[in-house]
């Protein structure tokens, strides 16, 4: 394991180690059992539900486990391993990092999501990462609604040392993103990352505003936005599926980032999401600092879910 991977593993598990992990508890009780009988499968299913896979997805995993491994006696670690394996199989196909491919430049990344999910912080982290990869980065302060949202992004831009295009609070976000694309195109910036106000997916007006921002982004560069990243909070339960579905329909989501995996939430809803939507998962957030963004690793998350 590389140092970095260890680092993120440590962060990811830090929360889990401190509180009781239900799957571990349950599985410890299974050690003596000789095979995956109904009671064992029930416990696995419940453990998966407790990790936010949702009852339907947890049931599907259970059924797969029931049909594939019936005869062999397994110890605790063995059970953990097959549960993790099953989950990894679902997650592996959607693990894909964000890449700067857009040409002509800039490659435009629109970041959206419900309120407080971690959009602005994730943008700062992404900016830092692209900057480390020697790309020229620019930020656009498209959240003109929330108090001091612009100030928040400005502080990050300053800390990272990247330019930011912003307007007044209460201004029209479409105008700002237009200016940003124009400016980024002029000076040949590689990546433009656009922040947006948090919005619940069931608010039609706010979703229309997002569609408008999208259209305006494409006005100077028809390929923009190249990525529309939906930021999900790991503590969110099954509502995340409704979020993905609606944001995909109305804002053309192309990929996901999940934040706040440094707590005790397992983000199991990603498993259901991977199967249902097949959207790429780009990265995960494991803290509040610029370094707390990790590439999404299917095996790692699967093992975290499996305890």
């Amino acid at each position, binding site marked *: 394991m590389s140092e970095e991977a260890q680092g993120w593993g440590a962060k990811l598990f830090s929360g889990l180690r401190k509180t009781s992990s239900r799957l571990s508890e349950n599985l410890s009780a299974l050690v003596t059992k000789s095979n995956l009988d109904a009671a064992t499968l029930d416990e696995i299913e419940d453990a998966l539900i407790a990790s936010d896979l949702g009852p339907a997805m947890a049931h599907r995993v259970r059924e797969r486990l029931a049909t594939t491994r019936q005869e062999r006696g397994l110890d605790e670690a063995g059970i953990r391993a097959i549960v993790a394996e099953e989950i990894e199989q679902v997650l592996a196909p959607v693990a894909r990092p964000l890449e700067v491919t857009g040409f002509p430049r800039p490659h435009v990344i629109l970041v959206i999501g419900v309120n407080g999910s*971690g959009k602005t912080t994730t943008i700062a982290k992404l900016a830092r990462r692209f900057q480390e990869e020697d790309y020229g980065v620019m930020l656009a302060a498209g959240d003109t609604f929330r108090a001091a949202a612009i100030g928040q992004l400005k502080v990050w831009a300053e800390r990272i040392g990247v330019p930011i295009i912003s307007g007044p609070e209460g201004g029209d976000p479409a105008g700002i993103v237009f200016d940003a694309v124009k400016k980024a195109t002029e000076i040949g910036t590689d990546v433009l990352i656009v922040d947006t106000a948090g919005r619940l997916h069931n608010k039609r007006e706010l979703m229309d505003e997002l569609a408008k921002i999208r259209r305006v982004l494409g006005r100077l560069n028809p390929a923009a936005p190249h990525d529309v990243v939906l930021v999900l909070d790991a503590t969110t339960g099954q509502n*995340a599926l409704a979020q993905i579905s609606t944001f995909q329909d109305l804002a053309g989501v192309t990929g996901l980032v999940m934040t706040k995996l440094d707590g005790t939430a397992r983000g199991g809803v990603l498993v259901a999401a991977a199967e249902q939507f097949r959207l790429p998962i780009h990265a995960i957030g494991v803290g509040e600092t610029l370094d707390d963004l990790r590439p999404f690793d299917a095996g790692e998350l699967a093992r975290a879910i499996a305890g």
Partner: protein
Amino acid sequence: MFDSLSDRLGKVFDRLRGRGALSEADVREAMREVRTALLEADVALPVVRSFIDSVTAKAVGAQVLRSVTPGQQVVKIVHDALVEMLGAETAELNLATTPPAVIMLVGLQGSGKTTTTAKIARRLTAREHKRVLMASLDVNRPAAQEQLAVLGEQTGVATLPIITGQQPVDIARRALQAAKLQGFDVLMLDTAGRLHVDDALMSEMQAVHREAAPVETLLVVDSLTGQDAVNVASAFTRQVPLTGVILTRMDGDARGGAALSMRYVTGQPIKFAGTGEKLDGLEEFHPQRVAGRILGMGDIVSLVERAAETIDAEDAEKMAAKMAKGEFDMNDLKAQLQQMRKMGGLGALAGMIPGMKKAQAAMAQSGMDDKVLIHMEAIIGSMTPKERAKPEIMAAKRKIRVAKGAGVTVSEVNKLLKMHMEMAGAMKKLKKMGGLGGLAKMFGGGGLESMMGGAGGTPGGAMPSMADLQKQLGGQLGNIPPNLFKK
């Protein structure tokens, strides 16, 4: 997407209602569906288990099995258990102390603490004429203190001047001094978001709590929260004496599971519901209403209130009378469509009335938005009075004629007819539950008994006028601002 908890329980209980006698197996089967529904609604697993156990035990009792309407009794038991779990009474802030009364808000990152701080301050200022001072102790997140300062300006509530570099405990001390010296009634402390497993930040929170000795320590939780709710609730409860919970983002389409989990694990009442990012988006939390909504009765009380704002009294009475009879023809649908537009469009009505979810799904499928409401009105406009009164006579030929008249396709006409059927079904269901009268009694404190008595509940003729209904509800709802739903 799955059905809402309301719809799901509705289905289960519909089936139970149809039975004369109820076996233990029936109860267990219903409870399995209740369990799945609760889990889909993000109620935390341990809470679900405990809830199901206690409800099953109650429902399988001999008395229930021998009773005349066992299905209804199961509904009542589940309903009562939900209300009990949510906390039977609306909880108020307790500010009875020597001023300044300190209110401290804590919670995970991004849960809505800062916004809620300003919302509460605004409410206390405007309604109770309190002099409120707000202070942000968030020295972690960029521009967090500025955020509260801006909100203070927007609401006209004083904020503690920011001293860069000062640490949370020191800020709390300074805030307390300022509040005392300047004679503020209430001091609101907004704190940084923290993970419940972050030892350093949890100790900091305890230190602030010791320093400020708040009368209210409120845990701010996102109502979209999933299974992690138990971990969060139990950790915060252990580390600081919570006095209440605030659920934010109730304006989302979350299913309310977090409300159950939070109430159960913290043992503290849910004092407010956040219903928008704007500063008037704060409401009292009404356990009765939420339980009713969970049980598939829809948020009828809210609907009635909002309707009262936009419908004129005569229309309202007609509508209420029709709803009470379980009648719902195309004229009613047309009136409803117009109403919907006035009441803030489709989104605003989501989940408020039983069966609406289905109608909504049908709408969503047809890519329907508020503009389509106008199209639908046009379709109904092209129907003859006879067709409007009896939409079931709409055969192929009639559909083609109407489609041409309205300038739409036949499939759009079909969609509208389907939607009408869904809504008519919902109205019938409502009637079975005793109509609005039954619901009003229930919300008025009569409990479910009132609608369990007679076979069909309140007969249509006894339907109270909209005004009466409001009066009846007034006891519970008197303190809700008239602009509750306006953004």
